């Protein structure tokens, strides 16, 4: 069992970056770098991370890093992975580095999906991390394919009317060796999933919920609390899928096993300003019921049935 004491002290994400206060992406990068070590090549798809790494000629990320266009996460990784393999074969690199793609939900759910799907089909050896803040935060909070029903964004001023899509299941359908979801409120779970992904050959997909304080409209100090409540309310399910077998982890495992009572989705919605409008409207109850129904539906799809105590 890994504890906080076992995590390396070395910081590859350097303090004093251009990230907002309480940024989930910078925290996720810190933990991911601790799991992967310094022999890593990072590919950043256009997102907030392209900004928070600092402006030219300085950078907050102490790793080889390449900033690429929105739709090219998977394609760039294929190129880098092939290049790295050639260098190892020629003897110019002693140890093969881990190729890590870091993309937001816009660069994964909407714009980057064809490139990611292609790379997964070619069985490219890389880790793809999607930090999902459920909107295009970098350009001023527009709706994305990951925005949940009822959430306010600048392009859904009355609350989004559609459900989000389930990209982790799309990746599982590619039959890649490892797919996992993670949450920042469970840092050891995320750390272990990154370490596990590092040890597996082939395409690995890890998705993390990244509550964005300015975009979701809550105080930056509550970033971890919101992450935790997303898991406790079932709005974000923690699981890993290895060779087709799904296994629940962290807080979700405790809910499924009946050790902890699932919290109502309303607790999670009320913490965030982006749901305030829809909760106050006459359709508020309906939106809440629809989200609650979606949680049950997601559990049914993953687990086979919904235990009566949930």
């Amino acid at each position: 069992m890994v504890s906080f004491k076992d995590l390396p002290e070395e910081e590859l994400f350097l303090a004093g970056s251009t990230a907002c206060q309480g940024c989930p992406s910078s925290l996720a990068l810190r933990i991911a770098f601790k799991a992967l070590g310094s022999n890593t090549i990072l590919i950043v798809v256009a997102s907030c991370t392209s900004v928070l790494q600092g402006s030219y000629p300085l950078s907050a990320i102490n790793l080889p890093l390449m900033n690429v266009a929105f739709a090219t996460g998977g394609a760039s990784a294929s190129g880098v992975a092939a290049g790295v393999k050639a260098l190892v074969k020629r003897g110019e690199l002693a140890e093969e580095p881990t190729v890590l793609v870091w993309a937001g939900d816009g660069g994964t759910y909407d714009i980057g999906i064809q490139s990611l799907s292609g790379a997964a089909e070619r069985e490219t050896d890389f880790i793809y991390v999607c930090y999902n803040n459920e909107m295009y935060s970098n350009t001023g909070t527009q709706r994305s394919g990951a925005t949940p029903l009822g959430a306010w964004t600048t392009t859904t001023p009355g609350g989004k009317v559609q459900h989000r899509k389930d990209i982790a299941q799309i990746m599982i359908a590619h039959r890649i060796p490892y797919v996992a979801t993670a949450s920042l409120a469970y840092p050891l779970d995320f750390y272990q999933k990154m370490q596990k992904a590092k040890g597996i050959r082939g395409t690995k997909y890890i998705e993390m919920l990244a509550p964005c304080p300015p975009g979701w409209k809550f105080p930056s100090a509550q970033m971890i609390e919101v992450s935790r409540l997303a898991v406790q309310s079932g709005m974000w399910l923690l699981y890993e899928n290895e060779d087709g077998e799904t296994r629940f982890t962290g807080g979700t495992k405790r809910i499924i096993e009946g050790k902890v009572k699932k919290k109502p989705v309303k607790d999670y919605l009320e913490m965030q300003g982006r749901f305030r409008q829809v909760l106050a409207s006459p359709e508020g109850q309906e939106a809440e019921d629809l989200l609650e129904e979606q949680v049950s539906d997601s559990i049914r799809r993953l687990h086979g049935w919904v235990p009566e105590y949930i």
Partner: protein
Amino acid sequence: MKEDSEEVGYMTSVSRPVKGCAGDTGEWRVFRPVKDEEKCNNCLLCWIFCPEATISKDGQEIDYQYCKGCGICAVECPTGAITMVKEEKQ
């Protein structure tokens, strides 16, 4: 191959990693986290949850030069050893 790359030179601009690439980000702070050494039980939660890597693993010292004052450490501290204090105008 090596000679070729020396002739051509680097075609793209390269950024260098440095601490404080956005300057002293501690200036952004409105509330300052202050740690009570007596209450601290070295659980390392503040170290792991700091998004800016400003809390050291050894002794959990806060680097006020870069701490942006997000307040996550104060909320997550299980013993309430960290309190947020309003910054005074200098």
